[in-house]
């Protein structure tokens, strides 16, 4: 699934490791989501949305 995670993360000046620590996941998970190789679970998507103060659909773009 396409997403704006890398753009949003860099916009807030966060490293992948810092964001991973905030979300309680591994850095590899952040890398995989940014490369669009891995779709996060719904709880993780919600945590991402809360972290960036956005709605889930503002971060993830469904490829319909």
């Amino acid at each position, binding site marked *: 699934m396409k997403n704006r995670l890398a753009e949003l993360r860099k916009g807030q000046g966060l490293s992948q490791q810092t964001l991973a620590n905030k979300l*309680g*996941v591994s850095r*590899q998970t952040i890398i*995989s989501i940014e490369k669009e190789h*891995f779709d996060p679970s719904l709880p*993780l998507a919600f945590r991402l949305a809360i972290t960036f103060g956005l709605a889930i659909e503002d971060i993830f773009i469904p490829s319909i």
Partner: protein
Amino acid sequence: MRKDPVCSACAEVNPVTNNPWVPGSSLLGESSNWLAKAGFISLVVSPIAVALIWAIVVDRVTIPRANRSPEDNVESRWFDTAAKNALLGTWVVAGVGAALTKSLKTDLPAVSITLLAICGIMAVIFVASFLWEKRRGQ
């Protein structure tokens, strides 16, 4: 009913102990000492025991830098995929191996039966797991 050919060497060995086709079986033979037996059994059982103790005793919160949500990690999906591939791969290899050792009329009837048993056990576990998940999901 055709009886499987059995080699003379295989006929004289215990099916479990001292069987050249069973890895580690010589350690379980009557001739080996208890220390070797204990060592072998410890070696086989230790990975499962360590994992079990870790799961029961170790609190994730006490581990520095541990992920709070490992189930959300991409590694979790890798693990699931690897487990699924291991299941299907073992199933195929055991099935084909059972068919080959049976049809090629080798001197390994025990291997054929063992592989067939592995396939059967995996099928039972798969069906039980599927039905359990189905019941949970309803």
